[in-house]
């Protein structure tokens, strides 16, 4: 259970970015966050996983303040955050290594993760030799091979072609079904938000706050993307966005 | 065997007897275990002495007095070299580019020395002995002797006060020697031992006996020691064969007057605040 209580954040320059943002995400739930570029979505995720401290409010994970350096809330960073001095395999295995898992097991799991994102055979390459989308897939694999208590995804599929993207959306859903890990997905695609978010949050304003939210009980199911419900919600969200942004 | 006596030396001609005594086992024959520790400059030798890493050393009187002033437990046990009319050890030499200079025509000529050492005292004594008027020589500090030598040969400085064998080398390159230490009648360098060694009669006697034996051997067969002298006294290649074999006087203690002469100069220069009693400088009799 991930809970944010009335978060507020301003940067050293003095600009207030976020004000009064609250959210709750129970086991087996999911949340999609939409918002205009620069409104503070990444900042919000940073606070949710403890990488950045809110100036106001608090973030609780299973009732306890979230702390950085625990790996409890794994995040896929918008800029991937791969370490240039580690091979692709080592980058994927990094979270497992930190969790104390032995070399043989973590390499095996990392290899499986790479297969899942379609990067078989690239284990020994350096991140600098990968294309943008390949780097993003390594970052996805790195988060997916872990067993966090919450998963935070910052525009995780933004650099992928439609086919790969759909495959990995399915992978995310499968993982979520299997383990019930709640996730927060930041995305710019309304379609993606409606397909993957059990609840959809619109951030907007200056400072940004939760401007609107939509419940989406049918999300992620088999044929959802061809349903009337899906198209309706997409249209509804888009209309709200056009008004707000 | 006996505890090692580490004895600091410089690469100069005056140390030949010590080198002979060490190489030919003369110290060992007297039951002493003397190890010569070589230093390139007085500064580091003094520091080693002061930090108790040496049990004795070869050096000039000024350094010795300064060391004793700062509390180093040290006694002069003998003069190593004193100026003598038949042999020069230091001299004032002109640059080859200023070969025409004479004592009479000096005027505001730069002379490179190194301050607070025997060099400065020697210059002072030479000015007096050769009646060089004040202001005729302008001292210029150049600590490193090789640099001093090179600047002289290149004509960057007019004169330099140099020890042998560099003096002869400068002369061979066209410099003129204007003044030497030959008639100054003063002790220049000394041998010192730590208090505890100097106070031990037997050790002191053995040390001096070995030293005397080295002197005897050098005097008997000087040419046998040419190679050793060239090596330890850093005689330039071109002078190696022509350079005279140095002669050394029997060991003796400096007199209280000789010490007083040096101390007076040091007091005047501010190197000493008050005189050090003679008894503090030589082994208790």
């Amino acid at each position: 259970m991930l809970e944010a209580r009335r978060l507020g954040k301003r940067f050293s320059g003095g600009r207030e970015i976020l004000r009064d943002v609250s959210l709750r995400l129970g086991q087996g739930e999911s949340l999609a966050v939409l918002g205009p570029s620069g409104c503070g979505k990444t900042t919000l995720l940073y606070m949710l996983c403890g990488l950045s401290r809110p100036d106001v409010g608090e973030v609780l994970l299973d009732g306890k303040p979230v702390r950085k350096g625990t790996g409890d809330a794994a995040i896929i960073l918008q800029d991937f955050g791969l370490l240039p001095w580690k091979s692709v395999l080592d980058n994927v295995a990094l979270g497992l290594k930190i969790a104390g898992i032995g070399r043989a097991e973590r390499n095996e799991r990392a290899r499986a993760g790479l297969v899942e994102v379609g990067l078989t055979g690239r284990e020994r390459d350096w991140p600098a030799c990968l294309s943008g989308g390949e780097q993003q897939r390594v970052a996805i694999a790195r988060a997916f091979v872990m067993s966090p208590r919450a998963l935070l995804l910052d525009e995780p599929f933004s650099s992928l072609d439609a086919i790969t993207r759909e495959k990995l959306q399915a992978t995310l859903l499968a993982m979520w079904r299997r383990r019930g890990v709640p996730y927060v997905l930041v995305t710019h695609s309304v379609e993606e938000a409606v397909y993957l978010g059990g609840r959809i949050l619109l951030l907007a304003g200056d400072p940004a706050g939760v401007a609107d939210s939509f419940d989406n009980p049918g999300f992620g199911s088999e044929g959802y993307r061809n349903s009337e419900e899906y198209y309706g919600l997409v249209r509804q969200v888009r209309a709200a966005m056009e008004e707000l942004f | 065997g006996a505890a090692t006596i580490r004895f600091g030396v410089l690469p100069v001609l005056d140390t030949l007897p010590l080198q002979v005594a060490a190489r030919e086992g003369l110290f060992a024959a007297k039951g002493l275990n003397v190890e010569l520790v070589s230093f390139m400059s007085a500064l580091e030798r003094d520091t080693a002495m002061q930090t108790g890493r040496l049990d004795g050393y070869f050096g000039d009187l000024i350094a010795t007095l300064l060391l004793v002033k700062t509390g180093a437990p040290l006694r002069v046990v003998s003069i190593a070299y004193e100026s003598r009319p038949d042999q020069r050890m230091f001299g004032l030499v002109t640059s080859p580019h200023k070969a025409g200079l004479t004592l009479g025509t000096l005027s505001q000529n730069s002379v490179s020395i190194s301050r607070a050492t025997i060099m400065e005292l020697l210059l002072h004594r030479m000015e007096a002995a050769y009646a060089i008027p004040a202001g005729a020589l302008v001292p210029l500090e150049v600590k490193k002797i090789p640099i001093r030598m090179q600047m002289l040969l290149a004509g960057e400085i007019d004169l330099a006060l140099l020890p042998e064998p560099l003096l002869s080398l400068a002369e061979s390159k066209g410099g003129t020697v204007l003044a030497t230490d030959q008639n100054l009648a003063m002790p220049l360098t000394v041998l010192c031992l730590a208090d505890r060694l100097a106070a031990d009669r037997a050790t002191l006697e053995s040390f001096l006996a070995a030293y005397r034996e080295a002197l005897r051997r050098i005097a008997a067969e000087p040419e046998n020691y040419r190679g050793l002298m060239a090596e330890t006294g850093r005689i330039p290649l071109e002078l190696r064969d022509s350079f005279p074999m140095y002669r050394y006087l029997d060991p003796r203690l400096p007199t209280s007057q000789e010490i007083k002469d040096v101390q007076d100069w040091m007091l005047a220069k501010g190197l000493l605040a008050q005189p050090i009693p003679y008894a503090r400088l030589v082994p208790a009799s």
Partner: protein
Amino acid sequence: MRSWRSRAAKIGRYLLALLLLGLAWKALAEVLGSSVLPPPEAALAAFSRDALTAAFWRHFGASAFRAVSAMLLAWLIAFPLGILMGGSRRIDALLSPFVSLTYPIPKIVLLPIFLLLLGLGDASKIAMIALILAYQILVTTRDGVRGVHHKHIDSVTSLGAGKLRVFLDVLLPAALPHGFTALRLGTGVSVAVLFFVESFATQTGLGYLIIDSWGSLDYLRMFSGIFGMSLLGVLLYEGTDLLERLVCAWRYQGRR
């Protein structure tokens, strides 16, 4: 691994550099006269002669031993410390004043203390070189680590890394190139300091050889010593380069 061709090209460039340096030297020697600078061909001839003697290589070996031990020692101490200071503002704020206050002290004046504590042997010589190197390694490494992009630390922290793992997985690899820069700098510095520390209580080492021949104005032998130093320096320098290529392979990637 690079090809034999590129290695041959490198040797070729070294030879070219040697040739040009030799020409410049020759010209300078002509202008200045031989009282300070012997003609290069004479120095080279003397070097070739000396390089065949065991004595020369004893000097070389003694200096190499001292330089390499000092570099290792300095690196082991200063590199981790530099990473710590570069990685933590707090540690840096606390320790920086010590560095900036003591760094400018000419370390030579600490010689008495070294002699007191370590004696006249190799220990004090190595410690003296190491001390001087350590400051340089510290400053270079710290400044380098300060420049590490924060996103790398965020990334590892978000995976659950504590301070130790951030140190091992981010700061350490990010600091490595700077550590190598420091080592490269150190080759020159340690050789320069050798020149100083080999002036006492030893009769071995290239520094000793140089000072001793300088003292007797034996320029040919002195330049043999200088050639030896240069050779030692090139070996250390290229060794560092090689090591860096092995250890920091990731830096040589990603060009199109």
